[in-house]
Structure formats: C-alpha cells, structure tokens
C-alpha cells in the first residue's frame, strides 16, 4: 500500500491535451491549481471552488468534470482536455469556438472555457443534440455577462455545422 504523505510531493502522470505530463504535487492540491499554476494552462478558470459555477470544467476521460472538485492526484493515468486543447494549430478556432465568436456568446470570457468544454463533449458525442439537451448541459454553468441566449444559439449553430447541415468552411471562417 502506498500512502502518500500530506507534506510531500508525489508523482502524477496524465495526458493533457494530447501531451504527456509528469509532475509532482502534494495530495491536497486541486486540479484547478495544478493545471493553472503548476503547468501554466491558465485557460481553465476558477469561479467558486465548490462545484457550482462551472468555470473550471475540464474533460476527464471523455466526461465533463469540475476541476475544482478533483484532486490532481486523482487524475493520474487519465486523459484530460482543457480549452487550450480546443484550438487548432496557429490559433485557428474550431467550429464551436467560431460559432461563439460570431454570435457574441461571450463577453468577459471568464466562464467561457468551461462552457466550451461541456458543449464540445456533448457535440462530439452527439452532433444531433437538440436545444433541450444543449440547455440541460448549460444548466451546469453560470455566466454573468451574456444572459445565455447567444450561447445557446452558438451551440445550435455549431451542432448544425458539425452535422453538415451548413457549410462547415463558411462557419469556420
């Protein structure tokens, strides 16, 4: 049995946005602090640290999850994706991100990373997701700026593009 002691740093290895990470951390370190301040992936934000606001949402093994309710040590061996992993080479925005931009689905952008992750997972699993499903997923996020309507619209537009209902190239521009 390995008991990892509170005051020492312990090894944690996982895949972040396709790249292997091999670092050390104390048992109590939250995944939010770890990816933001240890690794420097600051795109994931922290709004409440008690699991309600959704700003910290990241993808863990294919599921959207609250990074603030996850210990860094718990993700040893997992695949993690954050907002940084959504953007293509040379900073090219993906379909969902472009739809956000076109629809003004963000203002301050603080909540946005988490919302993009939740929606990205939903649409990757099922681009036929309808408005009700999109809204259901969004109830797990708080946005204080937009009033949500443009976020729903952007998600619907992205879903349509991913299904091929609209010209993807035009959307991507």
């Amino acid at each position, binding site marked *: 049995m390995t008991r990892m002691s509170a005051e020492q740093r312990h090894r944690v290895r996982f895949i972040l946005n396709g790249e292997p990470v091999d670092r050390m951390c104390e048992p109590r370190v939250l995944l939010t602090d770890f990816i933001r301040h240890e690794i420097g992936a*600051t795109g994931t934000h922290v709004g*409440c640290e008690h699991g309600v606001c959704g700003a910290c949402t990241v993808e863990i093994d294919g599921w959207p999850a609250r990074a603030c309710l996850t210990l860094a040590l718990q993700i040893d061996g997992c695949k993690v994706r954050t907002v940084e992993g959504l953007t293509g080479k040379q900073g090219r925005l993906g379909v969902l991100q472009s739809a956000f*931009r076109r629809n003004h689905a963000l203002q301050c952008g*603080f*909540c946005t990373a988490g919302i993009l992750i939740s929606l990205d997972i939903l649409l990757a699993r099922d681009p036929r997701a309808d408005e009700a499903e999109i809204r259901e997923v*969004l109830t797990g996020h708080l946005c*204080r700026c937009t009033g949500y309507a443009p976020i*729903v619209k952007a998600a619907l537009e992205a879903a349509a593009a991913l299904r091929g209902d609209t010209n993807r190239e035009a959307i991507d521009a």
Partner: protein
Amino acid sequence: MDANAAAGAPAARSWIGQSIPRVEDKALLSGRGRFIDDLGVRPGTLHAAILRSPHAHANIVSTDVDAAKLARGVIAVLTGQDIKALTASLVVGVKAPVECWPIAVGRVRYAGEPVAVVVAESRYLAEDAIDLIEVEYEALPPVIDPIRAMDADSALLHDGFPNNIASDRSFKYGEPDQIFAEAERIIGISIRYPRNSCTPIETYGVVAEYDPGEQAFDVLANFQGPFSIHAVLSRALKVPGNRLRLRTPPDSGGSFGVKQGVFPYIVLIAAAARATGRPVKWIEDRLEHLTASVSATNRATTLRAAVTDDGRILALDWDQVEDCGAHLRAPEPATLYRMHGNLTGAYDIAHVAVRNRVVVTNKTPTGLNRGFGGPQVYFALERLVHRIAVELKRDPVDVISCNLVPAGAFPYRTATGALLDSGDYPTAVARAVSEGGLAELKARREKVRAEGGIYGIGYTAVVEPSVSNMGYITTVMTPAERRKAGPKSGAQATATVSIDPVGSVSVQVASIPQGQGHRTVLAQVVADVLGLTPTDIRVNAEIDTAKDAWSIASGNYASRFAPAVAGTTKIAAERLAGKLARVAAAGLNTESDDIVFAGGFVLSKRNPDNKAPFSRIAALSHWSPGALADDVGQTIRETAFWTPSELSPPDDHDHINSSLCYGFIFDFCGIEVDRVTLQPRIDCYVTMHDCGTILHPAMVDGQVRGGFAQAVGAALYEEYAYAPDGSFLAGTFADYLLPTVAEVPEPLILHMQSASPFTPLGSKGVGEGNCMSTPVCIANAVADALGIADVELPLVPARLAEVLRGAEAAAPSSRSATRPGERKLSGEGSAMVAATPQQVWSMLLDATTLSAVIPGCNAVKKISDTDFKADVTVRVGPVKSNYRARVTLIDLDHPNGVTLIGTADGALGFGAGKGRITLAPVAGEGTSVHYRYEAEIGGKIASIGGRLLDGAARVIIGQFFIALARQTARSATGGDRSIWTKLRGWLGGRR
C-alpha cells in the same frame, strides 16, 4: 474638422454601427485570456489569506497569532493594529468623525470583516495558519434592520454617527406641500428593496509590491475605477499619488460595478507587502466574495404621489432610508444620490419633496453595482405607478403615457435638476406596444386565467442615466458645506491615439473593460476617422496610473464608455487626422480640406488618383519631423480630454444634473405563476431601448441581455440575506442563486435611436437599464397575477404561499403547531436512564462525566462548581471542527432540574445555547431525563451550511444525551446493555 464627414459616402465605409466580430474573442476562446490570476508573479511573491469575523458585531478582546506565526511557510501575520500602524483611515463619504479601516480595529462590524491577514509561501499554507489564529470576541447587539437601526435603543456602530445615521437631508423642489394639500388623491407605497449583487464570476485579485528605497507602491488589481479612488488609496497608504502606481490586468472577468469594491483590499495587501518587504498576492475566494466583498444597498422607501382622478401625477414625496452597511466607504452614499436628478423617472412631474437618510448597520459595506441606485428608485416609483393604475382602475399603460415627458420637450429639465438630453418617450411606448404584441399578450392573459391559471402583466418606464457627474455626490452636503469644500463636477474622459514608425495606429484609453468589448468599438471608431479597417488599429484599454492619461473619472462605471470614452477617442483621432491632412496636403499638393482618409490611403477628394498610403503620411513625423509644417507640430501622439459642459455642480437649491445622458426604456412582460410550486415563470418579456446612436448593435443587445439576466436573478432568486443575529446566510453559490440558462428567457429587444446632442457620437449608456426596469416590471406582473399590493423581492415562492393560500390544513390533533421562522434551533426530547435522579445529578455536575458525555469533548476544566470550560470536537458526517466552549449551570434545583447555558467559538463559527434538563424518577426503571434546548449558530457555518444546520445541531444534541445515558448507565449499573441499546435506537443516533 470632421474627417469622417469629409470622406464622402461615409455609409459605405462606416464601421460604426456594424456588429463586427470582437478583437477580444480569439484569445478568450482559446484559453489565452490574461486575467489577474493568469499572469504569474515575480519569484518570491507571497500569498495572503484573510481571517474573517464570524460575528456581525463584537469587540475583539484578544487575538493570539503565536501559533500561526510559527506555522509552516508563514512569513507574517498582521492584525488590525499592525495595518493601522502602516496606513491611514480610508476617507468616509460624509463629514463625520468616523474612521474606516480595511480591517477590523478593535471591533468587528459585519460578519466577514477581515480580522487578520496571514502572508505565507502559498495560499494553502496561509489558510492553514488562519486556522491557528485564536480570537476572543465579546458579542455586541447586532443592528440589522435599517429602520430599527435609527431607534434610540439600538446599539451604535460608530460614535460619530448618532442613531446610526450618517446623513439626513431634506429637499424641496417646486411646491410639493401645496400640491399635496390640494391633491384630489394621494396614493402611496412602502417598499423594501433587498440586498443583492451582480457578483462577477471572477473574484477580486490584488498583487502589491513596495519599494522602500523610493517609498512607492506598485499594485496590480482588477479594479475597475472610478479613479477618484486612487486619491483615497494613496492617502490611506500614506504616499503621494505619484508613489502609488496602480495597474489593471488586460482582462477582467466581469465587474458590473462590483470590482470598485476591491479597493480596501488594495490597501490591505499593499500594507502586507510593505510589512513583509515582498510582493504579496491575494485572490479572493467565492466565500469571501459573497460574504464580504461588496453589496448593493438595501433601501426602505415610502413614496407618495399627489394624483388627479384621471391619473396625472402632480407631485412626489420620497422618503428613502439607505442602508450602506457597516462602513460608509467611498463613494457612498453615492448610490442614494446617483438618481437624484431623475427621481421623477420618465415623467413630467414639477413638484418633488425628498428626505434622504443614510444609515449604517452590521452588514457588508456597500458599493458600486450595476444599476447603482436605479433598481432601488424604480422599484418604488414603478410599483407606485402600478398601484395608481389599480386604484384608479385604469390601464397601467395609460397612466404611464399620460405622465411621460412629452416628445417635443427635449432637452428637458426635471424638477430636481437633470437635463434629459433627448428622446421621444410616447413613440417608444407606442412602438413597443405594437411591435411587442401587447394586445396578444393581454389575450393570452385572459385565456390562461379562463383556464384557471395565474397570469399577470407588468410594465415599467424608466430613464437610464449614464456618464455620472462627478459632483452629484456632493448633493449630500448642504449648499453651505459645498461652498466651503469647493465645487465638484464634470466627467473628464481621456483617450490617446498614437502612430508608430511604420504608420500603424494604437489607441490607449483608461476605460478598463470587463467584457464589454471596448477594444473592438474603439477600433471601429478610429478606423472610420482614419479610413482604415478595425484590424489595422490596436487598442489597449488597461490602465497604468504611472504612464497613462487618466483622471478621477476614468474607469468602467456609470455606463460611460460609449458616450464618453468612445467619443473622446473620436476627438483624439480627429485631431490627429486634422494634422495628418495638413501633412498630406503638402505632399499631395492640395488643400487640407480636400484631403480624405479612405481605404488605407490619404487622398484628394477632387482627384482621388492623387493619393498616398496612410502609413507613409502617418510615419513622417517619426522619420522626418522637420518636413512637417511648424504649426502641425507632431503627429505621433494625440491625447484628448473631454468633459461635457452640461455637468455643473449642484446649485444653491440642490438642483443637480446627476448624469450627462438619459436613455429611455419601456418594458412589459407576462408572467405565469405555477399553481403548485408558486414559481413565477417569465412567459414573455419585451424591452424597448432608446440609448441614442448605437455603435455596435450586437454588443448593445449583449448588454441588454446581460443586465436582464441579472435583473431576473434580483427579481426571483438572489438575496444577500442576513439572519436577525447578523449572520450572513448566502455564503455559497448553492444559496446565492444566480440564474442559469433554465431561468433566463430571451427577451424581445426593440430599439429607437434618439442621438444625444451632448456626446460626440450621439450615443448614451445602455448597460444598466434592465437592472433598473426589469425587477419592478416582474414584480408588477406578479402583483397583477396574484392581485396583491405588497410585493417583496426576491419573489421566493414559499413567501407567496401565505398570501395566496390562506390558512393551511391543520395538523392532526396530536401535533403541536408550527415553529416561528427564525434561525433559532430548538427541540426537546427525553431519555430513560437506569440510575437514580441523584446519580444523574451528580454526574451532570462533574467535570469528568461531562467530558465523557459532551460529544467530542477533549477536556473539561472546572472553573467553579457551576462553571466549566471545554475543548470540544464537533462532528457531523464529514464535518469536524474544534470549539472552545463555556458552560454555566444555573437554576439548580437539586436533584430535579438544571439549566445549562453554553457558548462555543471555533474556526467554523460560534454557537450559543441554553438547555433545561429535568430529571424525574420512574419506578423500577430509573430516571426519565427530559431536555429542551434553544440554540443559535452563526459565522462561517451559518453562511455556507445553513440549509443543514438545524438537523446537524439535532444530531449533536442527540449525541450528548445518548452519551449521557450511556455514561450514567455505565456508572450506575456497570453498563446495562439492554437499556443502552434501547436508548440508542430511541434517540436515533450513532454509537
């Protein structure tokens, strides 16, 4: 000159008015935003955590920081006295002998007030040390209700505020007394506007550093302005303004006014940096933010109107009691005076009486919040208009319409001094009624009602002020005091446009956006002037007070961006364009008024083929300054300052044009109330806006939607609630309920554009309007649906049950009636113990037994026969916390009964309780122990676990009696298993 107009066919190339994609978005969408906590810090930076008061009102008897100082990674622990030694009191918004510190000094005045700051190598370690600080408090009576605060027998928060009143001013405009005396009718309303906040998703952050060599501070904070606060800060930090460099990060995660309230923490963290000699960083957490950052004011208002029988309002009589919380922090009491010029709303009312009182209570100090004064004023005014319609049996739209400022009356001077700049209110109402489908909505109401549903329609008309007159706050002073203090007014805006050696254009403004897309709009504005595209322009909207042009009015508040900052930027760009035109004219051999800027070229209007690339002309000032005509000077950088002449100080009769621009909003909505849950659901919402010229339609709609969503929260869900003992009850996002996508419908947004004659671009502010109009519109609809006169926000369904359902089905006869709704915990029960009353009695009075029966008791010290001190670990499920408890026994009635009075203090808060234990012998079985208790619990646990507190207390008290029963059973009979087992099941506890 107006380069834009000169350019000819401006429509074809005007960027203003187009909803172009925002320049901000690419970075934000790919995780490359630069918010304060994303920036990293200098090596060696320390991290602060703050110990906060669990009490609303208490003296600090002692503070023991020794253990904390020795804790791992701790560099310093600073108490109120330490901070006081390094700083000066923050200035208070009224003249009074009152101090205001960013941390409690000797006394705490609200739950959550800072009591000590730990500076350590990491935030984790700092929080560890916080847990080791021991503070002894002596509780004082809390003052929570603003009206009761003024009672002679209420405790005083500050000696310098007699009766807890910080200010009391009365005003008369026109002849209100006479009008009321002669009125056909007087209709009045009394309302309470609750506490709430626009709570951005990003919390406060400060990174501060002190250079002892130059005695200067360098501070990075997600502060939003106004920069009048810079003067407050440098004074508090005891340095000249030029030794406080204040910078903001490039991105800020929303503010809505709230981040003005970070300023006391700037003082606190800067002082900590000075004390430690190291950079110190503090990122507020959500519990701190909800409990203690800042709140909008709650207000108690009585408003009366003198009304004609056909609904014309002739006079208003306002009596407003503003609750600013525990300290009057700058710029308060500004919330109360921001609307002073437009207290008559959208209406033509010539006679107004006002009494404004500002009180302090044991709650979090107040500050800027979107809507700032508007929600409070319009909740009273528009509820009153609704009441007038009900009482006169008239359609509310008719009552609104017959009182509106008439179309041709602009600019219109209100009774209290505002100069309403432009608009056509009747047309706006008429358009909203037809385009918003009011007739269909009314039909729908009839249909739903006919089917047995509960449905109502509400309306509001408001003017939305923007660009604050920095002098409005001086209306709180008497004219004589103002004369002594010197005039204050204006709204100085600044903007700089500069050109680099390759002719590319940069813009720098001190507007500090928090998501509003300022950088995009300014690129549009400047692109139009210089004939470029927005992507050619790079805008920086951060501030660095050591390098930038700024004034006390700088910052992101009072919806001043579009009317003031964008306009000033246009002026700066035009000045540069004027000079460049002269430079170009020389080069192109023509007159400067023949020059236009278009498509990236500078060209002759008469002969468009005669042209030069913009960048060539633009860069000339760098490469060949001598080639420029002398009177052109340079074209490298132009800084414009702009303040509107309409913003003068209050006059000797207290008339004040409190804002420069006044937009107009007319809203109506349909609300259905669920028969079972009583939850109001917004069925349809229509909002008509006239915010002058629109610069970027999508952003304007974004502001409307965002304000609307926050207003839905304020109307239906959000409240910074306090218990009667001053405990804060909404300390988590599970209790302070921001609306989610499921709660916010999409409003129908309509626009008119009556350009403001007073702003360079004709635009007015738009961001705050729905925070003013929507809460009361929803309240009016619910009042209409339920046929009730009193509506309290937020509209918590449970509160409607009593109003709507009358008496409830009685309890079956065996059961006692319901308890009153206070947060007092109480209960009773009894247990059988296999011992004589005498045996039980002696155990209750014995320290060893007590330590065995008090759940989690580590040690009991007997102070006297009836006084005990105990260290207790309380445990409920995963919750575990240590308390220092004191128990006193009174009313000893040997061996029949005793009363225990106890208090406890610990990291999770405090508790106080009283319990009566009575012992009665039961033949053949032993003693029946009966207990009855009443307890109060406050502090952190109340604000984050309030929902579970009652039940958790029952678990603990149950543990006590189970243990008592077990202990007595053991010592009396050597451990009677059967009784023990019986008891255990009976009391429903654990081993």
